[in-house]
Every structure is written in structure tokens, then in C-alpha cells.
């Protein structure tokens, strides 16, 4: 069924994209969402009006305490989209990656021509203990969390096992951290805009052995949104759309211990295979990828599961600088990734799409521009790999 949707004659164009800065926001939920939508609308070259939106998909865990239910209706009401068919999409940290996929399918299936996908999270207006409560709700509550695991713990288990199975050490993760901080340093919407030395990242405060503070992404506030339209009306909005060439999604056991292997994410492998198939490309065609580096080990696994590095060589890929902007084989996390750009859970997936939109249209800061970028990819993971959405974008259909 999904393959037939992928083969649909309708092509999907991204004609607008916008986001707030990720980080600590004084704005509340409504204000952040309005800012992301406003920027997305302003980015549409030939103009766009909120009232034209037919469907909206908004990813959020509803982390904060201000509006837990019917979040999406509240947000569209405050962003000029009153009356639109809208729903909240929840798949943990992959919420807006799946919102994007739902939006893509809505157009592919012919049900709608103008669709908004976005995401939002307000994380920093909570006490530390409440924040830690929310950060753990997307793991297997009964069998992981009650065994003392939060996500730093889950990814730490994975990292130690990865080092055991392959020729890799924590230094490989340090390379990921240093690179992503370097990439994010000049990104004006990044949460942590600071370069980090190898030595500093190597000796960070131990959060979950072997992962240090420099292996962990920050908790951020933020919102992001993209505007998708069907190909037959794309020219009304822009002469240079970014085409959503492929979409794939997958899932896996919620708990790490139920998976056959904890050093690979089957959800990513499955999502990537579907996305490449619908786009008609392979991993070798990708010029830049925004991957889900909630922890540095996650980027190492992603480079393998997405096909950029052979199994077991993701650590070496990082060590050799293969993901560095304009230096390696494929630029990984030109935005700084979750590590530097930030991770406002529900806003992360479409935030990745915003970066790809701007990179492929050569609209990022000159110093951050990936040269000759034609094809980009986003990779958005929920939890420790229970859900994953992958999208492929191109300057050409």
C-alpha cells in the first residue's frame, strides 16, 4: 500500500519552511508556533496565506504543562489556521518526522493539495525533576525505566556494547561532538553556539558511563514548520521548490532488551530502505544528512543504518572526518545536529527539514553552506529507536 502511495503520480513540493531559534525561549507554546509559521509563510517566494491550508499535522510530546490535550487545535487557532483539519502527532522525539510523513502522504494520496507539517516543544519552563520525568516517559516505563534507565542510560548501554563488538572507542564519539559543535557554531538558530575542543569533549562530566555531557544533546524549546503543496500548484508559490522525493518510516521493539541487536536500529534501516526506494536513489546519492544525534553514539549508528558507512565502521567514519562539512563523503548534521542546534523533541524532525530546505536553496549562512548540495536527507528517531522517519529531498523532482 505504501509503495503504491510512493509511486503516486503526484509529487510533493516543499515551498516554505521556518523555525524559531532552538534554546531557552521566553515565548510560550502559542508564541513559538506562531513564530515558526510566520517564518515559514515569509519564506514562500510568491506569497502564502494561512487560510489556504487544508490539513495540518503537528508533532509534539506535549512535554510542558500548559496544554496537554488538543494541542494542535490550540496552535492552529493562534496561527491563522482556524477551522483547518488538524491533529497532534505523537511518536516521542520522532513526532514531527512522522507529521511530515503524514503530510506527504496526504498530498501523495490526493486528499489535499496544501498541507502544513510542524512540531513544537516547550521544555525549559519546568523544574528539573519534572523535566526528568518527561524525558523518560517514551522508554519502556515498566521494564526499562523501573530498572533505572533514562535515555542517557539506554544510549550508554548501546555505546558500551558497540565498543565491545567493534574497533571503536569513546574517542570516536568525541569526534562526533566536536564536529557538530563546529557545524552549529555559525548557525544562528542553534541552541549551543560554541566550539568544543577535542580535549574538553573527551573529559566531560560523566552522565551515564561511558557517555559524558558532551555526548548528550541539550533540552531545548522550539517550534518548526514546513509548507508542502502538490506539484500542480507549486509554481504559484515558488520557482525553486524543494521536492520531497522519498519518505519512509519504521518501528521496532520499544525496549532495548527486546531487540535482536542493540548496536543497530532496525527502524532506521527499514525507514531508509523505503525512503530510498520511493526517491529512486541510494545512500551514495546523498550530499548532506540531518541525522538524529540525540547522543553521539546515535550518530555513529545512523551513519551505518542509513548506508553511509559499513556495519561496524561508523566509529571510523567519525574518526576520519567523513561527515565534516565540505570535507568528508557526506556532510552529516550541517546544522549542528541535535547536539549543537538543540533538541526540542517534537520540533526536531521538521526542524531538520527546515535546514535541508535552506541548504538546498543556498539560503543558509555562507560559511555553513554545503557546496553543490543537490540531495538531502532527514533522519528522525523516537526513543531509543522504537520509531523512525526518513525523508529524502532534492532540488530536482
Amino acid at each position, binding site marked *: 500500500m505504501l509503495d503504491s502511495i510512493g509511486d503516486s503520480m503526484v509529487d510533493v513540493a516543499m515551498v516554505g519552511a521556518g523555525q524559531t531559534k532552538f534554546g531557552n525561549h521566553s515565548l510560550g507554546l502559542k508564541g513559538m508556533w506562531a513564530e515558526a509559521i510566520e517564518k515559514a509563510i515569509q519564506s514562500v517566494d510568491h506569497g502564502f496565506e494561512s487560510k489556504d491550508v487544508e490539513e495540518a499535522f503537528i508533532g509534539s510530546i506535549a512535554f510542558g504543562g500548559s496544554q496537554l490535550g488538543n494541542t494542535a487545535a490550540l496552535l492552529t487557532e493562534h496561527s491563522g489556521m482556524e477551522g483547518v483539519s488538524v491533529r497532534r502527532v505523537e511518536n516521542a522525539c520522532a513526532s514531527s518526522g512522522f507529521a511530515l510523513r503524514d503530510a506527504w502522504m496526504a498530498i501523495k494520496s490526493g486528499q489535499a493539495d496544501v498541507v502544513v507539517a510542524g512540531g513544537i516543544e516547550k521544555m525549559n519552563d519546568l523544574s528539573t525533576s519534572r523535566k526528568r*520525568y518527561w524525558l523518560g516517559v517514551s522508554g519502556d516505563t515498566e521494564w526499562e525505566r523501573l530498572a*533505572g*534507565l533514562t535515555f542517557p542510560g539506554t544510549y550508554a548501554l548501546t555505546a558500551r556494547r558497540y565498543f565491545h563488538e567493534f574497533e571503536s572507542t569513546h574517542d570516536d564519539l568525541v569526534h562526533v561532538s566536536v564536529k557538530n559543535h563546529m557545524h552549529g557554531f555559525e548557525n544562528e538558530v542553534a541552541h549551543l553556539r560554541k566550539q568544543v575542543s577535542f580535549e574538553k569533549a573527551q573529559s566531560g562530566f560523566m552522565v551515564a558511563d561511558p557517555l559524558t555531557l558532551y555526548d548528550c544533546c541539550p533540552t531545548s524549546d522550539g517550534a518548526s514548520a514546513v509548507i508542502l503543496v502538490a506539484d500542480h500548484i507549486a509554481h504559484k508559490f515558488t520557482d525553486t521548490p524543494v521536492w520531497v522525493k522519498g519518505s519512509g518510516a519504521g518501528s521496532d521493539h520499544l*525496549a532495548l532488551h527486546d531487540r535482536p541487536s542493540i548496536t543497530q536500529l532496525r527502524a532506521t534501516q527499514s525507514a531508509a530502505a523505503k525512503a530510498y526506494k520511493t526517491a529512486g536513489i541510494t545512500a551514495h546519492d546523498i550530499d548532506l544528512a540531518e541525522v538524529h544525534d540525540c547522543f553521539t553514539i546515535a550518530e555513529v549508528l545512523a551513519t551505518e543504518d542509513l548506508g553511509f558507512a559499513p556495519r561496524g565502521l561508523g566509529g571510523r567514519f567519525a574518526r576520519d572526518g567523513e561527515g565534516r562539512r565540505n570535507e568528508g563523503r557526506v556532510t552529516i548534521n550541517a546544522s549542528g545536529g541535535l547536539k549543537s542546534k538543540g533538541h526540542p523533541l517534537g520540533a526536531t524532525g521538521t526542524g531538520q527539514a527546515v535546514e535541508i530546505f535552506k541548504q538546498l536553496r543556498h539560503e543558509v549562512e555562507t560559511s555553513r553552506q554545503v557546496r553543490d548540495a543537490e540531495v538531502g536527507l532527514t533522519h528522525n528517531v523516537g526513543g531509543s529507536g522504537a520509531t523512525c522517519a526518513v525523508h529524502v529531498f532534492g532540488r530536482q523532482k
Partner: protein
Amino acid sequence: MQIHSDGNNHFACSQYGPKWPGPDGDRITILLTLMKRLPLGTINLNGFDEHVEFIPSVPLEEIIEAGTNWTVEKDASYYLHAHQIDYIVALTDSEEEPNWPAFESLEYDSEMQRQLQDQWNLEVEGVSQGAYVSQAQHMLSTPSRLGLKAQIDEGQAVWPPRQLNATGKRLDSASKQMTESATILTWTRLSAAGAPSEFSGRAPLLGGVSTVLVQFDEGPKGVFMLADDEFETPHIGGKVYFGIRRLYGQDGMMHYGLKAVLSDS
């Protein structure tokens, strides 16, 4: 664990001595450890539950029957006793209070002990910021959680329990007893700052929380907190066994579960 046996009378207290049951211990955990080390039998609770500090989320009788091979009966071969003041429990063949033996005491930080006790009190009595697993859900999974009972699906052991298999067939209830020994596949030690919020009161006092991902001989894998690891560091390939300990307090009740203990410790 210190055990003293005198004929049919068996006494136990923690490795720390009669005054402290350890960071995650109490009279219930001492009792269960003692029962698992004795040949199976029948037991009369004999008013033991009047001596527990916090109400367990699963009735004591169910904890005993899920976590050990013993059965609880009124007309039983053993009677259960708890020392009025100290953390000593006894299984004897008489209903009468026994003569309590002396046990050795290890040196420990009594200030830390007091602070840990305060944290347990706060946790149980306060509004939990922790992950919520209802009492009903704790009771549903008691045989698997405390007794390591697995389901069988096409000849393979399945644990923790599942509902349907890949063909849509409902799995039978957990009945296969897994061995209480497993191999460490990986492990971590979370700092106090990285520990789940339900452990945020105790984790700083303990210097963090250690967790292991292990594989049972029967195949299934699971994650468990480590217990009694003050002087040991886990390693991949190392063996663990299991003991029932306090997990966390919530809604005025204490939740119990299995924790892994390093076989070398």
C-alpha cells in the same frame, strides 16, 4: 546477607548487620533472600506484615509465592517472625517469638543511612515525579517481575510477557521458570543527574544508579538495576544472580522488583 541456622530455626539479617537492611533493603527483602536459600516449604505469615515499614504494592503473600518456591498456608511447617526493633527475620517451627541470635555489624555511614531512610519516606508519602506504573499493572506482571516466569512461543522463551505473536496468536500466561542467572551484555552507571526522577532523592546519596542489560540462559534479555555493587564494577561477560529489593515508593506504597547482583561480589 548473614544467615544463622539452629536446627529448624533460621535467622537472617543484611550484610550490614541488624541495624540497617542496606540501601534498598527491608524486612521483606531479607525474608525473601532467606527463603530462596532454604529448601522450599510452607509458611504461616504469623502477623509479619505488622512489622513492615511500608505497604507493599503487591500483597506480601503474592510476593512470596511469585518470588520464591514457598507457599503461604495457615497450617504451615514454618512460622515467620520479625524482630521488634532490629532488621532481623526468622523462620521457625514455632508460633512463639524465638530467641534472637547476635549478628555482626559492618561499619557504614550512619548519616547516609538516615538520609536514605528520609528519602524513602519522602518518596512514599510525597507526590511522585516518577514514571507511573499503576498498582494494578504491578500486580498483573508480578509472576514475571518477581519470579522470572516466561511465556513459551513456538518453543522459545518470551520474557517480559507479550500479548500476541507475529501470527496473531495469543500467548499463554507465563509459566516457564527461567534460571536466576544471566550474563552481562552491557552496563552503565548513571550519575545522580542522569538517573530517573523517581530515584532522584536517593541517587545522589548512592553516587548514581548502575544498570545492566543481561541475557538469560533461556535466551530472553532484560535490564536490571544492580544491587550490592558498592565495591564491584560490572564487566561484559560477567555473571549475575537476582534478589528482590525495593524499587521505588509511590502512592503510599512500596514497589518491589528484581535487581541483579554481581556473582563475584
